[in-house]
């Protein structure tokens, strides 16, 4: 999951640095991700994992780090299985 997340971020987050240099909890917004780029990241993650982020997850914190994204996706993917 983390590899896919990082691939999506590399393609869509428009970071000022290589995603490979960022730790799991490093702030993606501080690394250059804009509010519009976070929309592209959200849509690309939805494509990659076949989920849809509900309105309650549309907060800055959901996409602020690799770890935060992974936590959100884990919740959505397990809900899809149940």
């Amino acid at each position: 999951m983390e590899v896919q997340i990082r691939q999506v971020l590399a393609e869509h987050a428009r970071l000022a640095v290589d995603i490979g240099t960022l730790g799991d909890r490093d702030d993606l917004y501080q690394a250059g991700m804009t509010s519009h780029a976070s929309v592209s990241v959200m849509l690309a993650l939805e494509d990659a994992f076949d989920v849809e982020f509900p309105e309650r997850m549309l907060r800055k914190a959901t996409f602020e780090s690799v770890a935060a994204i992974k936590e959100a996706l884990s919740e959505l993917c397990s809900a899809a299985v149940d």
Partner: protein
Amino acid sequence: MPIEGAAAGGLRAGADLVEIAQVAESISRFGDRYLKRLFTDHEIDSCRGEPSVTAAGLAARFAAKEAAVKVLRPSAARPDWRSIEVVRHPAGWCDLHLTGEARRLAEEAGISKLALSMSHEAGMAGAVVVAVCFSD
């Protein structure tokens, strides 16, 4: 006599800038999923034209939504993008129309008036939203 910040006087302001090329790229990459997720039918219709014109108009509207969120100051999840709608009047000016969670946040903040201005130039689109509120 010190000049107080705007927040102390019941005024809030938000501004945002968006690169038009990013919007064009998202339209190309995600198509209707992107358009329908962020924009109302009215907003999409208001921006119909050459692709470059569409992207510029939608970029300005996205900037308006983000500027409005900064004014609304949500403490939890942000309001759905389409609950903040840029309404274009026949004479050409635009206003903001809030529904759902965006409207609730505005009412909670005692926001009585909202003003919007948008522009785009040299590959960038921007918007400013100013609100008068009685809770600050």
